[in-house]
Every structure is written in structure tokens, then in C-alpha cells.
């Protein structure tokens, strides 16, 4: 009996990092990208979602293993194994990707509150200040409370998906039937879907969470389970967002140019209140990621360069850490205040940037996973490496196709 109890505590103690990471992953950019994917291309991008689920599970497992074996953060390891210059390169990539994500999440905050009639010139500065105070005052556990609200919001998509009576045969068929459209817009969304499902910041964040929780190879099987459950969940929800939007918006011919359009997908469940429901969900999801992403960026960069980190320190003890966090919030928020900025476009663009930059971070992870000095007997197997290389090559290829199509002017 006691054994079972310990097992349960272990599962709930350790089921955490993977699940929280994957929920934060469906942020403003995620919800927007999946909505657009379903609204503009119906079920035809679903095959890519299935593929990317496996790729995500793959890389999240690698990162979890890397964390459990070494007990070090990802940027620590990059610094120790690749030296200072490569670290600088990796950190610049991470900073650019995370800055665009932060902008996207402020766009999500602005868009969601605009639906409720709050001007972005009020909502963005207020939420930015709130996020800043939360971290500088060091009360960060509120993220867990967001977690529950976000989960409820995603449940709404699942229910709406069923109520919209989608063509299930076509939806499930599309999961395994690749369709390609030779237009730049399709590839923008294609890469954005990759970039929003597997993000550079997730890798750093997941690794830190696992190290923080003190998870080692002893409990690795639980961590693995947690990561796989998280991966399944995040993409299960992505699937339903796409299907719901395909069954509603695609059918009605609404290509989604603003947040109100995307909200209509929830009409089957919420009727005339669908915009309120969507606004609340988008707001909380944006807030969750808008707090996590800048923070994990500051952690990663300060760790890499050996500067003081920690929200339990004060500004004078960790000046660079707090300055970086503050700067990301201020600049991320300020970018949104540019008059007449198309918020949906910004969110989509940020995900595309992430998708283009993602392979760089993945290659760093792959190299670490193949280093015997770092991993000992837990290095990647051949099968893993081949699968991972194919994935990375696929993502790079998609970026190149987008580049070519854009140059050819096939929008």
C-alpha cells in the first residue's frame, strides 16, 4: 500500500515539467496558427501535425534525458561543450526567437482584450507591468493557477469540435494523407505550425524544469511518461483547434484576418458568447506564455554567460538577469503599440521566425546527445539519430521552399 502511495506521489510530483511546458506551448501564436491552418486549408495540414507530434516527442525525450543525466541546464551544456563563441551564437538565436514570441504573446493579450472592448494602449502596458511586478516581487506560483483555466479553455475547443460535426472520416484520413499546396502562404503556415509546436524556448525551459525538480535517471521513466503525455496532450488540443476551425470557419469561407474571426470557431459551444470565451482563453494562454518565455530567456542567457540568476534575488544581486527580463517585456509590449499593426499577422510571423530558427537549436541538442563525455551510456541510438536528422532536414527544407516560393512571388 505504501509503495503505491509513493508511486502516486512520484507521478504527481514529477508529472509537471512536461505537462506544464506543453500547455504553455499552446500560446497566442499557437492558437492563432492552428486557427488559421484550419480556417484556410481545412483538414489538409493535419498530416503535418501528426508528423510533428512524433518529432516533438522525440526531441522532448532527448532533452529530458539530457537533463536527467547531466543535471545541468541546456545553455550551461552548450557553453561547456562548444565554447564561448558558439554559445553567443546560440543565445542570439534564442533571443531573437523568444523576442518574437514575446511580441506574439503581447499581440495575443492585445487582441483578446480588444474583443472585450479594451484598447491595446491600456491593456498592453498594464499587463506588462503586472507581469514585471509578479516576477520582481518573486511570487511566481500563479502560473499554476493559469494552468487550470487554460486547460478548461482547451476543453471548450474539444467540445466545440464535436458539436461542429466535422467530417471525421476526412479529418482522420488527412492525418495520414500528405497534401501540399505550392503557394507561399501555405508554407508560411506550414512552417509556423512547426515553429509553434516545437519552440526553441521549450527545450531550454523543459531542461531547466527537470533539473530544478531534481529528476535524475532514477526517476527517468516517470519523466519520460510525463513528456510523452504532455506531447500527446498539446497536439491533441492542436488537432481539435484545427478540426473545429475547419468544420466552422473553412466551411463558412472565413480565412481569419483578426481575432474576432478566429473566435467564431467556438460558436457551436458558446453561440453568441463565443467571442467572450475565446477572448478569455486567448488572454490567459497569452499571459501564461508571456510570463514564462521572457523569464526562461533571462535564465538561459545569464546561465550561459555565468551571471547571477534567480527570481528570489533582488535587482542589485542579479542586475543583468532582471534588466534582460524587463527589457524583453518593455520592447515586446512597445512593438505591439505601433498604430495599425495587424495583430494576427504579427502572431503568425513570429511562429514562422521560430520555425526557421528551430533547426539551429535542435542541432545543438543532437550534438550534445551524441557526446559520450556528456551522456555516458545514454547517448542516442542510431535509429534516434537517423530519425532526428530526417526531421531537422525536413524543417530546413520547408524553410527553403518558402524562401524559393516567396522569391518567385507565388503568394
Amino acid at each position, binding site marked *: 500500500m505504501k509503495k503505491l502511495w509513493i508511486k502516486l506521489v512520484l507521478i504527481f510530483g514529477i508529472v509537471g515539467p512536461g505537462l506544464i511546458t506543453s500547455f504553455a506551448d499552446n500560446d497566442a501564436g499557437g492558437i492563432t496558427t492552428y486557427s488559421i491552418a484550419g480556417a484556410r486549408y481545412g483538414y489538409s495540414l493535419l498530416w503535418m501535425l501528426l508528423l510533428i507530434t512524433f518529432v516533438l516527442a522525440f526531441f522532448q525525450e532527448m532533452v529530458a534525458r539530457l537533463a536527467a543525466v547531466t*543535471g*545541468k541546464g541546456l545553455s550551461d551544456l552548450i557553453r561547456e561543450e562548444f*565554447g*564561448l563563441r558558439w554559445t553567443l551564437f546560440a543565445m542570439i538565436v534564442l533571443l531573437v526567437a523568444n523576442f518574437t514570441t514575446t511580441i506574439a504573446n503581447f499581440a495575443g493579450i492585445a487582441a483578446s482584450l480588444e474583443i472585450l472592448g479594451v484598447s491595446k494602449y491600456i491593456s498592453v502596458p498594464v499587463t506588462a507591468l503586472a507581469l514585471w511586478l509578479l516576477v520582481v516581487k518573486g511570487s511566481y506560483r500563479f502560473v*499554476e493557477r493559469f494552468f487550470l483555466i487554460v486547460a478548461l479553455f482547451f476543453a471548450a475547443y474539444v467540445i466545440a469540435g464535436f458539436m461542429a460535426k466535422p467530417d471525421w472520416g476526412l479529418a482522420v484520413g488527412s492525418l495520414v494523407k500528405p497534401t501540399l499546396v505550392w503557394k507561399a502562404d501555405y508554407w508560411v503556415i506550414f512552417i509556423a505550425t512547426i515553429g509553434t509546436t516545437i519552440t526553441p524556448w521549450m527545450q531550454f525551459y523543459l531542461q531547466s*524544469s527537470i533539473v530544478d525538480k*531534481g529528476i*535524475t535517471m532514477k526517476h527517468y521513466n516517470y519523466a519520460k511518461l510525463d513528456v510523452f503525455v504532455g506531447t500527446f496532450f498539446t497536439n491533441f488540443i492542436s488537432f481539435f483547434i484545427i478540426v473545429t476551425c475547419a468544420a466552422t470557419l473553412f466551411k463558412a469561407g472565413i480565412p481569419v484576418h483578426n481575432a474576432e474571426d478566429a473566435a467564431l470557431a467556438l460558436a457551436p459551444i458558446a453561440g453568441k458568447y463565443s467571442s467572450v470565451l475565446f477572448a478569455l482563453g486567448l488572454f490567459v494562454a497569452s499571459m501564461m506564455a508571456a510570463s514564462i518565455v521572457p523569464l526562461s530567456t533571462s535564465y538561459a542567457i545569464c546561465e550561459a*554567460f555565468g551571471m547571477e540568476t534567480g*527570481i528570489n534575488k533582488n535587482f542589485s544581486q542579479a542586475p543583468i538577469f532582471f534588466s534582460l527580463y524587463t527589457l524583453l517585456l518593455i520592447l515586446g509590449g512597445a512593438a505591439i503599440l505601433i498604430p495599425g499593426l495587424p495583430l494576427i499577422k504579427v502572431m503568425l510571423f513570429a511562429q514562422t521566425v521560430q520555425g526557421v530558427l528551430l533547426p539551429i537549436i535542435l542541432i545543438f541538442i543532437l550534438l550534445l546527445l551524441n557526446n559520450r563525455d556528456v551522456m555516458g551510456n545514454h547517448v542516442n541510438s542510431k535509429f534516434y539519430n537517423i530519425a532526428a536528422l530526417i526531421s531537422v532536414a525536413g524543417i530546413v527544407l520547408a524553410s527553403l521552399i518558402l524562401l524559393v516560393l516567396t522569391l518567385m512571388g507565388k503568394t
Partner: protein
Amino acid sequence: MRYLSHYLHRQVHFKKQHLGELVDWVMNARPTQAELAGLVILDNEGRERSISLNDVESLGHRYIYLKRSLGECPELAPADDQIRLAEHILDKQVVDTRKKKVYRVNDIEVEQEGERFLVRWVDAGLAGLLNRLGLPESLQPKPGKMQRRIAWADVEPLDPDLKSSFEKLSKMHPADIADIVEELGVTQGADLLERLDDETAAETLTEVEPEMQSDIMEEIKPQDAADIIEEMEPDDAADLISDLPQETARQIMNEMESEEKAEVQELLQYPEDSAGGIMNNDYLAVTRGLTVEQVLNKFRADQPEPEVAYNLIVTEAGEKLAGMLSLRDLVVAQPQSKIDDLIAPDTPSVRPDTPLSEVADLFSKYDLVMLPVVDHARQVLGVITVDDVIELMVPEKWKRSHRKRLI
């Protein structure tokens, strides 16, 4: 002063002949004097060669010239305390034993003294970082600003490949080493503890936050864990073991010496939130009727642990509590006087099931440093010491751990 990073990947020549590039420095590390002993050169065939500094003609700003060709240089003799600076120190974490913190090394500063090169400083500040990234002097912060230099005498490398015994680190206070362990996390913390001697490891582990203690113990081989736990105070050991998963606890207990094991097992039967749960059964007891001198001799012979050394328990027939004796009263008394006259009358005592709040009240009311725990027949079971009570009273947030909480 020279920065070591400036010389890495410099081309190595003998006269006009290109021999390879410099990939590392070899240093002989002695606790205070750290001297460069040689260079590691990657030759044109891609092989690594270690040569002595004696074979170097000059270390220029563009090229390094040797006195003879690589083939003629003898291989540098390996020694026990050799460190490869680029591999083990640069970009890695070290402990600054003076500041008692972990830093990441951005660069290493070397000073030339005649023929010798001495490693003087390790740079862990922003200045060293920018310098290494090749920022021109004019853009760099002024000296003194953003600088964090650690004298080599205070540097304890953490690279696990070095297999060092942490001489400098061991001299730190266990509570400070515990902070370092918490900062490093479970995996590296366990690795660090395993390389300390058992006694230092035990004292350090006691100071680590409880949740992490058990995580670390699970990482260490049961045999080594048992050796460390044997060195702990029985009350701390019992707390730790009761927090472990059953299977791990059983494995460790099996490896323990019988005497320590018995002490710990006796304490394990009491619930954690009672007087019995925080009591220590490794204390010094003397019987009535002895002289001060006899007691002091016993004290010297037994050498009790500091936390139980301020007071002695005095017992009478049948192990019953007669009273307590303070070390101060013993020291100021005449050697031939009887201890019976020194015993404080009506010494307070508690039962193992006394709630902790009551225990704390007694400590506070009577300004105690030690409180005996007795059973219904007034037989002494153990003592509670003030350090464990303070532990109870100080709110968690005062002892804010260094572990960051992202979630």
C-alpha cells in the same frame, strides 16, 4: 598579465617550419602556487602532443616558437596534480572558496616571473567575457567595473574529470558547502559529496534542504550513502532515512554499522512532529557521585559532538534522569568536588510524544540549549538540542534556497 584565451589556437613554429596549433595549457596545481608546466599542441597530422614549457623559445602575439622540432621534444611527464586549463577550467564552473559561490570561468590570467608562468587569476566577470569575444579595448568597460577576478588560491575546480579531493572546498564551513550543493543541483551535488571525506560530507548533507537530501541520497551508491549517514548525528540521520523511499532506505540501512544502525532505528519509531522525532540519542551521560575531574576525563575520552557537548545528562540508578550539568559549571568548579552539588535541581524534561510547540516553549522559557527526553519511568531516551529547535522556528522563507523555481 596575459589572458590565456589569447594564445589558444595560435600557430606553433620551429624556425620556418609550421608544427601545429596550441590547443591547451598544462598546469601543475599546488594549493597556492600554480605554475604552467607545458603546452598541448595539435600537430599537422591531427595528433595531440604535450610538451614542456622548457622547449618553448617564445610566446609571441602571432606565433609560438619552439626551441626544437616537435619530434625532438620529449613528451611532458604526467603528474597527479596536473590540470588542463582549456579542458577543465575555461568555460567550466569553479567554486570561489572566499566568496563561497559558484562561478563560470570566462578567462584565465597568467603572470610571467622570469622564466616561469604563474596562474594568478580566474576571470568570471563581464570584462573577461567581452575581452574574450574580441571586443576592442575602447568599447570594453573600464578596469574595476564589471570585473570579477578570483585569485587562484581561492579557486576550486568542479570538473568531474579532475577527480580532485576538493582540498580548498573542504576547508569551507559545511553550511556554505551545502549552499554550493544546492546551487549545483542533485546530480552534480551528489558527485561533489561523494568526493568529500565522509565526515565533511555528513556535516554538509545535514545542512542541505531536506527534500534535496533524499534526492541526493538516492543518487549515491547505498554503500557510500551508508558511510556518510553513519557520520551524521542520529537524529539527522533518522530524519533523512524516514524521508527516503522504502527500498532505498532498506538498502542503506543494510550497509550501516550495527551500532549506528541501532541508534537510528530506535529514533525511527517516533513520529516526526513530536519530541521523539527531533531527539538525538547520541549524548554524554554520567552517573551521580562522580567528581568533576572524573567527569571531565570522561568528556575528553568520549569527545562528544559539538551540538550535544554544552550539557551532560546525569543519571541515577536504573538510567533515571537526575538532572543536567552545564559544561561551564564543570569547568569553573574545583576538580575534586562532587558533581551532585552542581546539578541544576528540577531540570525540565519532556516525553517522546510531547508536541513540538510545547518543546519550543520550554526552550524559550528556560533559555535551554538542551532538553532531556524521558519515558514514563523517567528513564532517559535522548536529548533535544537547540539547533533542531531553531530549525523548527525559523520560517522557510528565511532559508530561501538557491534553487530557482520556474514553476
